[in-house]
């Protein structure tokens, strides 16, 4: 794994853009991810957040946890707002400033998909991180199209009948220069991907799995473990896609049974053996498909 270079402060510790003290719930993966992402991008960054946990974590007037300019834009406009800022910066010749959009799964998979698709189609110059906690957590745990099958939410009390939308395939279909998955269980991998995205231009998309103790009904000290198990069970593999075509798997998992991941989360308490079996089968199929794509290599 590449070394992670971050701007050091005078004490030798990495210079943090995100301050201590924020509004995240205890054990929130997003707060950790935001800290790592911003540390990697540095201070010459403008952040667009939309109604999402990221907006809450960023603070309520007159307090903010982020020491860079932040804009709390409309829910469905992360893509369009980031594009507006990056075009204005280009007009003004300030190409060195990075525009970072932070949206949740609802703001990306559902209501924000159109503006993200439009921006990706135009290959607008920004980094977009979807912080996926697999439901509308900010409004108190309602189903989104990022919610996995059979999952309990406040609006799917007997389990979600739909399957999780494959956002990475959607983004790959736009042939954007860079798309990657990341998990809070693999922080160095996340920072390497952010660093890689920072060095590129055009629309760069990172799909980050963000375990949510509140919404996933899990213990607050299990965030990193569950983020790791998501990868090690192949529920959420780590990979990159260049130009929408070239897949590279970043971590070959230990292939643990999905139940190791599911059983730690209260949102899956109601699962039957058949449902667990279904999830395992689908996970295996998806993992095989991903391997086949990666095996094609670059052509």
């Amino acid at each position, binding site marked *: 794994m590449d070394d992670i270079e971050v701007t050091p402060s005078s004490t030798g510790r990495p210079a943090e853009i995100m301050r201590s003290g924020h509004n995240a719930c205890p054990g929130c993966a997003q707060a950790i991810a935001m800290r790592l992402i911003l540390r990697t991008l540095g201070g010459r960054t403008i952040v*667009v957040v939309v109604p999402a946990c990221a907006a809450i974590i960023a603070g309520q007037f007159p307090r903010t946890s982020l020491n860079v300019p932040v804009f709390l*834009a*409309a829910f*469905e406009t992360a893509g369009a707002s980031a594009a*507006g*800022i990056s075009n204005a910066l280009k*007009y003004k010749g300030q190409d060195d400033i990075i525009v970072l959009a932070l949206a949740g799964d609802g703001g990306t998979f559902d209501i924000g998909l159109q503006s993200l698709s*439009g921006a990706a189609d135009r290959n607008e110059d920004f980094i977009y991180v979807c912080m996926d906690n697999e439901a509308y957590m900010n409004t108190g745990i309602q189903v989104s199209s990022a919610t996995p099958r059979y999952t309990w939410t406040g609006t799917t009390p007997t389990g979600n009948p739909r399957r999780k939308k494959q956002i990475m395939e959607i983004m790959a279909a736009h042939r954007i220069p860079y798309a990657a998955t990341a998990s809070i269980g693999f922080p160095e991998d996340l920072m390497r991907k952010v660093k890689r995205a920072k060095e590129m231009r055009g629309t760069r998309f990172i799909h980050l799995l963000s375990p949510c103790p509140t919404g996933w009904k899990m213990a607050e000290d299990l965030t990193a473990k569950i983020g790791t198990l998501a990868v090690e069970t192949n529920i959420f593999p780590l990979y990159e896609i260049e130009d929408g075509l070239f897949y590279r798997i970043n971590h070959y998992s230990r292939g643990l049974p999905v139940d190791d991941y599911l059983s730690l989360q209260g949102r899956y308490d109601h699962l039957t053996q058949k449902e667990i079996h279904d999830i395992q089968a689908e996970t295996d199929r998806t993992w095989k498909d991903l391997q086949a794509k990666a095996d094609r290599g670059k052509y």
Partner: protein
Amino acid sequence: MRGCMPARRFSHECRNMKKFITGNDAVAEGVRLCRTQIVAAYPITPQTPIYEKLSDWDACGELGGRMMRMESEHSAMAACLAASLTATRTFTATSSQGLALMHEMLHFASGCRAPVVMACVNRSLAIPWGFWSDQTDTLAQRDTGWIQIYSENNQEILDSVIQAYRIAESVLLPCMVILEASFISHFMEPVEIPEQDLVDKFLPPANLPLRFDVERPAFIAPVVNQTEYRDYRRLSQEAMELSLNVIDGIDHEFDGIFDRKYGLIETVDTEDAELVIVTSGSITSTARVAQVRIREKGFKIGLLKIRVFRPFPSEILREALKHVGKIAVIDRNISLGSEGIFCSELKAALCDGPAGSKIQGYLAGIGGTNVSPELIERIAFDAFNREHPTVRSIWMT
């Protein structure tokens, strides 16, 4: 004062070129002359020729700014807002459904005090589907905190675009300039295209507040508490009130450079009038003809055009109409369940005024139907002869 354009000074006449163009092209000319830096747009009939014209100039390197070809009006306004907050001069154009889709973002733009300028071509809102002139689309956005300027003809819409940037950037409120489908958007008229150096003199280079400054980071548009929300609303209302004087001052300044002025309102022969017809937009031109004819028949009739609808020039209207017994308001729009919207607003402005004027509303031209001088004469004589106004506006067919 008579309604027509004032006589021009010769010094300018030889400098400024006249072109025979549509209202849409006049808007595009204005946007180019204002050295707009970011254009984000999405096609919709009947606005599309504005977007196409700007794209043509972009393609041949004459636009000067950057074009963003968006995937919806909602995103177009989101991009304009974000670019405006990044201290660039922005523009978009839309109509009817597109404006309705933008509604959420209109509140964002005014709440962020972003001086975005937008041209809206009035078009009937579905359902039923139609492509015709009807003001309900823009009037339905009256509470979004945007300055609204309604234009009567192609020259006025070009001039209003130029004025709109000065106004918006002076008071930090977004401004929509409004032209009607077909009658202005697609009809051709001779339009004086101002010289670039005169526009530059009137409208200095964009100097907008930079909200996203990496050297001095700030959180733009965070969540606030109840009292902070109320206080922000109050500040926006104060800016709206302040803009009445600003719009007037900028109009005078514009007159000094270009020899044309429009006012917040315009009055024609109202001094001795027993009846004043109130209009907006292109119907005003037709009403000018009817008003002269009715005067020639010996009736004391005046005309009042409302150009600036937000902020509503209540005090100015009260003063202009304080002696007038009867007022007939013509609306090419309707607030369903109530009446014509200009009529409602005028009644509210005059309700406790000194004249106790009798105000009768008339719905004419809705859905882009034709409003002839004869129709306006019928309205005038109905109003002259009517003892008591009806509660609701009268449908004219």
